């Protein structure tokens, strides 16, 4: 009895200790996020009075207004560009990955294993190896400095992860489903579109969160492939603003928060799918 009670106390003490350490770690870990939030909502007057890391005395929207102003930060344009780039590139890469994943997951043919490995290996390619040739190719076909250049390249570089996830998904869909439909006289394509595609929704959700986050946050490709403000994406735009707002931390912080909103939205509302994607199909990043 007494020893059981002592054990319980020991356990409780252990848990208290563990969570104290974890909480301290978490507080340290959250300092950058805290800094970005408090700085974004502070007036320049308050910041220059020395209050960089203090909680704002009143929540001000002036930093947000400044970075969104077309004559100032012009972030609205870059946000629009990023949406125009991220949505089609995510859709195209998922569509192509679904086709390839179905071809590899539901059929056996000579060389299917090699083809699969060749495609999946692309997931690990450092973008640097393709940077110069893609820069030249986009110049040659007249797409340099357009969003299309970035859309195409993200579509192509998204194929490996989308193919991997979809192929793994289709492999576990029972073959009986397909065979029954074949006996009923359905052809291969109506089976794909009418029977298989509706089943893939959870896998598509996983890929959508993953591709959107990755393409939205990417900087290197739009940095290499675009130049004018008209085709500038949000991450390139924000980095440019830090040049314009060198000591204006409030402006930088507001731009950073706005630029992170779409992926934070996914993080809050679709976390389950996002985390599943990270562990399911290895990882991009």
């Amino acid at each position: 009895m007494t020893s059981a009670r002592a054990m319980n106390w020991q356990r409780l003490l252990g848990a208290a200790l563990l969570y104290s350490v974890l909480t301290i770690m978490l507080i340290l870990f959250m300092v950058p996020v805290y800094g970005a939030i408090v700085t974004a909502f502070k007036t320049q007057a308050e910041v220059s009075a020395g209050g960089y890391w203090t909680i704002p005395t009143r929540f001000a929207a002036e930093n947000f207004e400044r970075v969104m102003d077309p004559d100032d930060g012009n972030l609205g344009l870059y946000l629009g560009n990023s949406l125009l780039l991220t949505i089609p590139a995510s859709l195209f890469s998922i569509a192509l990955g679904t086709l390839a994943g179905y071809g590899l997951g539901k059929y056996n043919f000579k060389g299917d294993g090699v083809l699969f490995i060749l495609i999946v290996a692309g997931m690990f390619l450092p973008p640097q190896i393709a940077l110069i040739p893609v820069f030249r190719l986009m110049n040659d076909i007249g797409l340099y400095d357009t969003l299309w250049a970035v859309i195409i390249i993200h579509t192509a570089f998204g194929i490996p992860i989308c193919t991997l996830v979809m192929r793994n998904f289709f492999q576990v869909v029972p073959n009986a489903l397909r065979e029954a439909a074949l006996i009923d006289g359905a052809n291969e394509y109506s089976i794909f579109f009418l029977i298989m595609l509706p089943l893939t929704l959870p896998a598509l959700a996983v890929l959508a969160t993953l591709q959107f986050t990755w393409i939205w946050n990417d900087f290197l490709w739009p940095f290499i492939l675009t130049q004018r403000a008209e085709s500038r994406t949000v991450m390139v735009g924000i980095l440019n603003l830090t040049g314009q707002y060198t000591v204006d931390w409030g402006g930088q912080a507001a731009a950073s928060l706005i630029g992170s909103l779409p992926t934070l939205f996914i993080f809050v509302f679709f976390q389950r799918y996002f985390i599943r994607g990270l562990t399911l199909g290895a990882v991009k990043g």
Partner: protein
Amino acid sequence: MMLRRHPWIVPASFLVLPVLVYITFVILPTLNSLYYSFTDWVGYGADFNFVGTANFEKIFTDRLFSNAIKNTAIWLALAMTAPTLLGLTLALALQGKRKINTLYKSLFYLPICLSPIIIGIIWVWLYSPKLGIVNLFLRSIGLDQLATAWLANPNTALFAVFVAWAWQQTGLNMVIFLAGLTSVPTPLVEAAKVDGANYWQTLIKVIIPMLRPATVVVLALTAISALKSFEIIWVMTMGGPFNKSDTLAVFMYSESFRKFKMGYGSSAAVILFLMTLVIIVLYFRQTAAAEELYD
């Protein structure tokens, strides 16, 4: 039955479009880099000469290159250890089903959804010499002599950038280790406890060996993403001061797109690619083990 009549026509019809796009915009550019690495192309115009192995001969005597290799080696060594151990520790501490664990886990992997650009911008303020919270904290506890211009000091720049990078990588590693932990059978852990093993013995003799596939994934992915990481370094230091944080990925960009030595830059890209290839091959040899994690 259909399968036998059309051994490849049907799958080919599904595969033709994705494979074509993949070859055109991923495979061919990769091979083209190899080709450019043997030329002296300057980035504009169609004129260039085939220079054989001159770029490679030059690069191995280039002091900036050997500096970049040295920085990449430091970066890689730090990347494989610190965020891996921290991610593992967090996963072990937070693996239970308590509500508070769910909240803590979410906050620890929040940085995964942020762009390296944003992370870099925020960490630049943290490191700001006068007003950054790192130095404010050091001064407030009387350690004034430790306060420095973290990103401008040649001795600290690379490490300071690395901490910002690790801030994101740790959460990612934690997620993968957590997935790995779900495949450790509870009866096995219980049995060890019944046999009188304490937590540390269970951890080292039972849990860690069962986490082998997850560890392989974490190490491979960390190494690959460490090798190609460019953005956060570019935002925070642009490889400086005095090239002290200039890794191979930054070197490749600077040579190609700042100095317009595209042929030379291509040879740097090829070397970066070959380093990655070594990791990919090692990783694929372990995939049988890693596959267990995905199921």
